[in-house]
């Protein structure tokens, strides 16, 4: 693969975290012309922060990470327009308002939108998802002056929406298919802790319950929903948070292979030359064993873009994600996860699990029973150092090796109570043969010893 040359025009559709990261990384290595097209907003904004605008913590301009001067100085052109269709043979984008845009290389980073499952009444006014800026504006209108809301789906967007609605004093009921909140991802104990916490914040959870239909009034607005079990709940707003689907409709006739998402290989190459797709809208043809076909997170969007930038800059590298990580916040409780902690354990799994008496903090270290190799970490209300957890997982640490370095991993603020003692006690009870560490490990020593920092620094 040739490096993109300075005469070529790279056009990116979408200015979310994936599109923006790609533009930035390519710009670092090339003088080529770069244009980002977005119908959603002229400037890139942080999608994950939409909730804070609704709750009044920030204004819209506060969730814009890069001001105008940045794009001008970086010579990254911004086009605020809707791409009607892509003409692959002519290498042209047909825009709704502007003139057609010619490209030499095209990157599709169009993201996704809420998935609907053909529920009766799903087009009534007051039914919506929360993905885009326009969704936020719609939510402002749809929730003005209302008293009751129902959220369908027990995932991360669902709890964000619940928190948003609660901030305006709106009564919220969540329909959750599983026995506990987010139990398709969180193991029993963590899911129970988070479920209790959400309920404690005044959210009503209808567990093992699904949406049957949405009922409207004569003016076409939502007035209630009916559940699978026949329960009718009056409400003036229905939040749909049952996952997202790739935004690919405008590519129907473009001649690009599409399944649910735009099909790509491990270089993010689509079925058409010079056309790439990544992040929410992309679907891997052949994911590595055990890896998902679609990765639709903020973090993976950024990682995809970093990998594709290498390819566009002539250093053709397959995408290798490395150890998984993610984070979220459920009202007052922060969540971090490193590596792989499945919702349901098999007999090969064993874990150290600790939680405090108030059930606001928890730590789980999951390991392979036979080899004691660390598989993953779940944290609730406690922060660990990403760099060190990544190192442990990447280097295949055993639980015993992890325990030697455990005191160095905590990232909680100064003066906070430390909980590693409790975990260590559990560990030594389970493994009485293991010796306590000879000396207290310190993060700065480990950072230096393992080289857990980059040598480049821009500030």
């Amino acid at each position, binding site marked *: 693969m040739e490096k993109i040359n300075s005469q070529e025009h790279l056009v990116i559709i979408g200015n979310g*975290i994936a599109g923006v*990261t790609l533009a*930035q*990384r390519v710009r*670092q290595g090339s003088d080529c012309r770069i244009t980002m097209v977005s119908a959603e907003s002229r400037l890139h904004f*942080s999608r*994950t*922060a939409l909730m*804070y605008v609704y*709750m*009044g*913590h*920030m*204004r819209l301009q*506060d*969730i*814009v*990470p890069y*001001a105008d*001067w*940045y794009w001008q100085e*970086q010579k990254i052109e911004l086009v605020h327009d809707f791409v009607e269709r892509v003409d692959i043979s002519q290498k042209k984008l047909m825009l709704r308002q502007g003139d057609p845009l010619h490209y030499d290389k095209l990157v599709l980073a169009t993201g996704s939108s809420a998935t609907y499952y053909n529920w009766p009444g799903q087009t009534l006014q007051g039914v919506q998802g929360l993905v885009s800026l326009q969704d936020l504006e719609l939510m402002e209108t749809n929730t003005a002056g209302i008293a009751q809301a129902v959220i369908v789906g027990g995932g991360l967007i669902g709890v964000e929406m619940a*928190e948003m609605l609660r*901030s305006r004093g709106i009564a919220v009921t969540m329909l959750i298919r599983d026995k506990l909140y987010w139990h398709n991802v969180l193991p029993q104990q963590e899911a129970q802790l988070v479920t209790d916490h959400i309920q404690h*914040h005044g959210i009503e959870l209808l567990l093992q319950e699904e949406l049957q239909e949405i009922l409207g009034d004569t003016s076409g607005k939502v007035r209630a929903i009916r559940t699978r079990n026949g329960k009718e709940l009056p409400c003036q707003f229905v939040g749909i948070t049952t996952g997202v689907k790739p935004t690919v409709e405008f590519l129907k006739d473009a001649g690009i292979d599409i399944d649910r998402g735009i099909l790509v290989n491990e270089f993010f190459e689509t079925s058409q030359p010079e056309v790439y797709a990544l992040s929410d809208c992309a679907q891997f043809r052949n994911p590595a064993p055990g890896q998902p076909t679609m990765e639709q997170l*903020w973090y993976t969007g*950024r990682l995809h873009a*970093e990998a594709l*930038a290498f390819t566009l800059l002539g250093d053709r590298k397959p995408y290798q994600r490395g150890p998984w*990580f993610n*984070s*979220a*916040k459920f*009202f*007052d409780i*922060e969540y*971090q996860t490193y590596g792989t902690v499945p919702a349901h354990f098999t007999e090969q799994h064993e874990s150290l699990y600790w939680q405090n008496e108030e059930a606001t903090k928890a730590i789980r270290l999951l390991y392979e029973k036979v080899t004691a190799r660390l598989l993953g970490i779940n944290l609730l209300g406690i*922060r660990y*150092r*990403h*760099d060190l957890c*990544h190192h442990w997982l990447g280097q295949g640490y055993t639980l015993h090796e992890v325990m030697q370095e455990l005191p160095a991993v905590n*990232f*909680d*603020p*100064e*003066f*906070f*109570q430390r909980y590693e003692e409790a975990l260590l006690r559990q560990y030594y009870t389970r493994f009485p043969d293991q010796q306590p560490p000879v000396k207290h490990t310190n*993060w*700065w020593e480990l950072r*230096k010893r393992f080289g*857990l*920092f*980059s*040598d*480049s*620094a*821009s*500030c």
Partner: protein
Amino acid sequence: MIGLILISIGLLGILVAAVGADYISPVLTGLGGTAVFTAGALLYIWQSRRQKSPAEQNHGLWQKEATSRGASAWVIGFVLTGFYVLLYWFPNTLQGLIQAMEPLSQWLRNRPSDQWFLYGTFYTLAVLIMGVFALLKYRSSRYHIIRTISVMFFQLGFAFLLPGLLLMLNKPEYYFSYFWPLKYDYLFPGTVDYLVRDGAALGVFMVFWGAVFSFLATPVLTYFYGKRWYCSWVCGCGGLAETAGDPYRHLSDKSRKAWRWEVAIIYPILGFVILTTLFLWINSWSEGRLLGDLSGGFASTYGFFIGAMFSGVVGVGFYPLMGNRVWCRFGCPMAAYLGLLQKHFSRFRISTNGGQCISCGNCSTYCEMGIDVRWYAQQGEPIIRASCVGCGICAHVCPRGVLKLENGPREDRYAGSPLIKRDELRILS
């Protein structure tokens, strides 16, 4: 509701003391009103903060007009600004309120009340009452609880009770928590001379204390802990900003232009105060032969424009409009001095946790010093900025726990996380 009624009665009492001293004892209405106001404010704060969980504390800040430069914010801004103008240049207009504090002044200092005692009393009360607000708002964090208690303690003990006690004992009034170049005249020859002459052994100790803190303790403490040991743990200006000013912290300007103004103003002010001090000493040693009236002119110019106009009128008066650290960010020479030490000779930094930043912007929004924290965090870099006062609110409002204030080795202090690729771009070139 009872809290609001008490606040209203208290304010009315203070108003009557200010304007109606001829008809009714200002002590009764003024001091009584202040006490009722305090009780009402504490009650109201307790009730309104307790019912919000830690993550709910910033709900609606940009939607309520009082905290988003709405009409009431302008009114509070004008009233505060006007109060400072009266205090500095027309203190006689505050006679009623000054008289109201008479018993308190006699009890604490054994001498009549004056406008500075009135100011000190109100200032300390503001720090204490709103200190309770900050304690409740940040109750989930031990860092903030300890830090808030620290600023309340230093304001009450070191900046109010102790100077009063010194006066009672007929010693020079001295604030052990303020140092040159913030309290610029503490190292002016006139003050040194007066302290040594008037305070005898204690005066010598005061001069020694001030000099040691300015030139020895400040660099040493800043080396180990960064600027925060002073700006957000000890300093009275910082104390007011972290308590009474906390509801306004998001109003600071984060733009690149604001940073350019900051650099263009604060370092010249530091230069100004250093020059003034040097001139005064040269003048003093040469007994006026070398510089004539020049140094005196420098000192009074500095006192008027920086000491009164900037730190008082603009610094606090503009809280509801420009945020709570206008003085600390644009004007304070001590902050400039500490900032240079923090940037170049310190172990302090705010670490970013790997690649966890989601660029939401809470950190930048709630940075009272107007630092674009997110700029660094989203690139996995540590935040090392001269202006950072180490209040720790960025780390507190981060919904992903990405930031941590810490002191570590200076080696590789600027190095970022290996888990994220970054721009080689600086905001200020």
